């Protein structure tokens, strides 16, 4: 195991080279891009809510008009028997 650790340590040291220079506008670019993402998320969420509310209203109106819980009156007369 220590052999493996030593090898890992060796490669770890290889990876610790000079860090690349960070561009000065990196945070600004990320913020701008992130703001766009945030705005898009918000728009999608709002559209989803709107759709949900519209569907609920449409369902309520349809239910009030059609009253699907009322059993329809029987169309056929029961058969006449025993006379």
């Amino acid at each position: 195991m220590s052999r493996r650790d030593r090898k890992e340590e060796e490669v770890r040291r290889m990876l610790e080279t000079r860090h690349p220079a960070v561009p000065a506008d990196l945070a600004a670019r990320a913020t701008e891009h992130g703001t766009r993402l945030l705005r898009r998320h918000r728009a999608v969420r709002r559209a989803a809510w709107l759709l949900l509310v519209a569907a609920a209203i449409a369902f309520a109106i349809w239910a009030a008009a059609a009253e699907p819980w009322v059993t329809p009156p029987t169309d056929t007369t029961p058969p006449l028997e025993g006379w």
Partner: protein
Amino acid sequence: MSERQTAQRRRRAREFDAFVAGAAGRLLHAATLLTAEPPGANPHAQQLLTSALAHTYAEWDRLRGEDPYDRTRQELAARFARSAWRYHRVRGGLLARLTPQERLILVLRLYEGVAEEQTAALMGLPVDRVRAICTRAIATMRSTPPTPPRAPAGAVT
């Protein structure tokens, strides 16, 4: 309402700027290792990191105590894994000899110190597979000289 939103945005921007100032150097180095670009010319790494940071910014108010650095690193790794086919071409970075998958595992395990189990979960691989790939990558790195492109005396800092 609008005033509260402005205040929240300003606070978020301030916290995010402070986070980027502290973390960008290390994250950009990791990204540059992943894309196998030389440190002086790393447009792909910068692009990758900017996208990951933008994602962190958008999630900032919903982090709820989660470490933004972990979040960004996770996003960076996921983005790199998704677009790994783009990074097969050798650009002359330190890890250019490795495949994108080997680079990702090596950077997460050795440079970032992420645990084997977490790396495996992040990549959707079994743990022993991650261990095997890591061992292979280490062997490849040790078998070839450390700085092949240009090796002037004392170039290693």
